[in-house]
């Protein structure tokens, strides 16, 4: 068969080739680069290497969204922070006082803060930041709250006053989610030329889609902080690659890891997991599409959701099952509400029969950018099919999905999150497309809903629990917004890293963070 051809590769040449290949590999494995740069054992490390799943979106710095979570508390500061119990802690603002008629709010500011350009921070900058958020193109959710004030004026060297026609107790939430920008350089921010704030780190270099660096701000108003000289942030979109990078020692910290992977790492004992405030992951129902306008059909859907299995199989328990969109420790939320709908296929089937809708064809569309949601959609689809629906999976890419959320024209059901619920019911109800009462993605507009939402928005602190409870009961009964679990965005880190916190806007706060080898 091969008589005319002789072995063209002698044993010698094969050996030579193999040696060369081996040598190539060995040369490559030169210095072991898997440990982080810095001092020897126990000494503090000066460079922090962070992995994130999405690149910066510098045209929307003031917006509460996943892209800028590493930027909002490092390069920028807020006026104040909202803590878990609903109270506020000072940051750039030192004090705030409502007038007795609740129609004006005086905010006192620090006088020792400088922007990275050296310019002093003052009340005009607060007003400028608020105005920047109110511009139509900013998309900052805080605008939904800011615009409820009739005016915001400078009333002193370190003071601004907000005035209201109608009392709005939730106003301070706006400043608990608004990075204070520098009006003089803000126009250069989207391209990355000048990203200026007052925060503990300055904006270094940026290779779009790949990585960016933050450098220590030597004149930060909290003296002695921060601890790191440089923060290197690498963008890794593939969850498998992110996991490998952390496990192989190329990263010290990861923000936004898939929850199941985080749980696995936590169980291994080699990494720590820092939890964050929780938010709503839900199945939305477009009530304009028949027969989804029938509340019995919607309740059938609610009973067909195996929330416990989703929590354990998809999220390894890091996201707790819940029927309520607000965090389970929010004022007015009861355990009965959280567990309101059990996984009850018999009830679901009978409800469907009553509504005469057995065998209804519906489409289910998970948000494609969240692998956990895509996994959860399998369980949702299964439950719905068992209950008697015919479910077709809807596959949209991110852009198409966002279009549908904005327009409210999903052909059936969808699954995504409302991250804003971390701030509590009031803020979410005023700013999140799936929840606003005048128009929402589910097209659920009723006078009852509108009045219950207003009651929550206008409620003072003492009336808030009851108002929230009433609204939650109504939402549970109407089942147009079916929460599956309370998700979160944890920070996974090597054991030597301490002092990292995640605020209520899911922004990572590294001001007090240190890393020991």
């Amino acid at each position, binding site marked *: 068969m091969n008589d005319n051809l002789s072995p063209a590769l002698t044993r010698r040449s094969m050996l030579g080739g193999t040696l060369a290949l081996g040598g190539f590999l060995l040369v490559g494995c030169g210095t072991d680069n898997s440990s982080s740069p810095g001092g020897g054992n126990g000494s503090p490390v000066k460079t922090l290497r962070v992995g994130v799943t999405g690149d910066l979106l510098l045209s929307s710095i003031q917006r509460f969204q996943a892209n800028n979570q590493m930027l909002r508390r490092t390069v920028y500061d807020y006026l104040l922070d909202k803590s878990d119990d609903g109270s506020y802690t000072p940051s750039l603002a030192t004090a705030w006082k409502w007038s007795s008629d609740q129609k004006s709010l005086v905010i006192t500011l620090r006088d020792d803060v400088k922007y990275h350009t050296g310019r002093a921070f003052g009340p005009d900058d607060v007003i400028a930041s608020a105005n920047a958020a109110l511009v139509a*193109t900013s998309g900052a959710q805080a605008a939904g709250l800011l615009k409820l004030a009739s005016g915001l004026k400078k009333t002193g060297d370190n003071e601004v006053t907000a005035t209201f026609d109608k009392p709005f107790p939730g106003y301070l939430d706006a400043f608990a989610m608004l990075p204070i920008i520098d009006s003089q350089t803000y126009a250069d921010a989207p391209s990355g030329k000048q990203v200026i704030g007052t925060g503990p780190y300055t904006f270094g270099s940026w290779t779009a889609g*790949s990585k960016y660096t933050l450098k220590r701000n030597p004149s930060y108003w909290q003296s002695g902080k921060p601890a790191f000289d440089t923060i290197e942030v690498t963008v890794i979109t593939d969850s498998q690659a992110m996991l490998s990078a952390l496990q192989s020692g190329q990263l010290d910290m990861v923000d936004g890891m898939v929850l199941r992977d985080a749980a696995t790492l936590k169980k291994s004992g080699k990494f720590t997991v820092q939890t964050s405030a929780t938010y709503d992951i839900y199945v939305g129902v477009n009530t304009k599409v028949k027969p989804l306008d029938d509340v019995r059909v919607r309740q059938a859907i609610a009973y067909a959701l195996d929330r416990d299995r989703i929590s354990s199989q998809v999220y390894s328990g890091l996201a707790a099952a819940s029927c309520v969109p607000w965090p389970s420790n929010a004022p007015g939320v009861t355990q009965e509400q959280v567990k309101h709908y059990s996984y009850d296929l018999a009830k679901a089937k009978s409800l469907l029969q009553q509504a005469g809708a057995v065998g209804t064809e519906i489409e289910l569309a998970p948000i494609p950018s969240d692998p956990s949601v895509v996994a959860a959609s399998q369980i949702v689809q299964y439950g719905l099919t068992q209950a008697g629906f015919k479910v077709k999976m809807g596959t949209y890419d991110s852009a198409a999905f966002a*279009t549908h959320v904005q327009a409210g024209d999903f052909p059936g059901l969808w699954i995504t999150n409302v991250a804003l619920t971390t701030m509590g019911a009031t803020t979410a109800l005023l700013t999140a497309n799936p929840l606003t009462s005048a128009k929402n993605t589910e097209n659920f507009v009723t006078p009852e809903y509108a009045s219950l939402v207003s009651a929550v928005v206008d409620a003072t602190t003492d009336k808030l629990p009851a108002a929230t409870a009433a609204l939650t009961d109504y939402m549970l009964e109407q089942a147009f917004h079916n929460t599956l679990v309370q998700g979160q965005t944890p920070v996974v880190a090597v054991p030597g890293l301490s002092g990292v916190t995640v605020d209520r806007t899911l922004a990572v706060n590294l001001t007090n963070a240190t890393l020991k080898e």
Partner: protein
Amino acid sequence: MIRYTLRRLTGAIGVLLIASVAVFALLHLAPGDPATVLAGPDATPQTVAAIRHQLGLDQSVPHQYVSWIGQLFSGHLGDSYTIHQPIGSLIAQRVGSTLQLTVAATVLTLVLGVAMGVALATSRRRVVTQTLDYLATLALALPPFVSGVILIFLFAVVWKVLPSGGYVALGQQPGEALRRLILPSIAMALPSAPVIARLLAAEMRRVAQQEFVLTAIAKGAGRRWITWRHIVPNSVGPAIIELGIRIGQLLGGAIIAEAIFARAGLGSLLVQAVESRDYRLAQVLLLLAISAAILTQLVAELCIAAIDPRVRVGGTA
């Protein structure tokens, strides 16, 4: 040959023009536009409309196409809609990673492929051919996203001798850059080398049957000489075409390899551009990818004409 090359190049421009229309049309037909992506899911219709107006997207589609083509011809690639930086500099930032991977993977594919192919065709020991066959089959059947994951697991996570990914410019730290290239180029070469090897071997076996080879043997030429001087050159045709295709695709951006090994190159930029409906960026990158493919194939055909004595460029077809 020069006339042929020129003819092909002018033909290529025609292709690119048609492709630009097709790409433009397809992207605009898809639901969503940069404004919806930039506005975010919580945006009000006013926000989306305001952003749309800011980007100039509320003009008619043909108008946008004409102004874009006009811009291109005057040498301006324009700015990316979502990243707000000039497209030229974005490409310059990412092209290094793609070029590195292309060169490394191609070299490895060539070396492995030719060695395996020649060995398959010429070795008289069944053990060798059988083993090579099975190895080739195994490598062929392993998609990069499986072999890549296994390689990372073994070399980066368990043994910790190589980094799990990332990209470093050759100019900055050559050692680091090479270390990060090893695993991805192996993952990319593994499925390609056996294809080259098989094409080469199949062709070599066929060519070896032909009379001119017997003639050469009768004339007293040594076997190794016959193999490398006569048979291999006549056999490289299909293999080189395939290699040309693979290089073209690598230049367009090895999307899956870039995702697994976290190398931000042109491929991931293209995916990002399509997903965020960044029309300008996506269009430029696609045209770039198509140009790269056309050019590499042209070069491949010229190479065949140079090596294979039977083929003349510009034949009847």
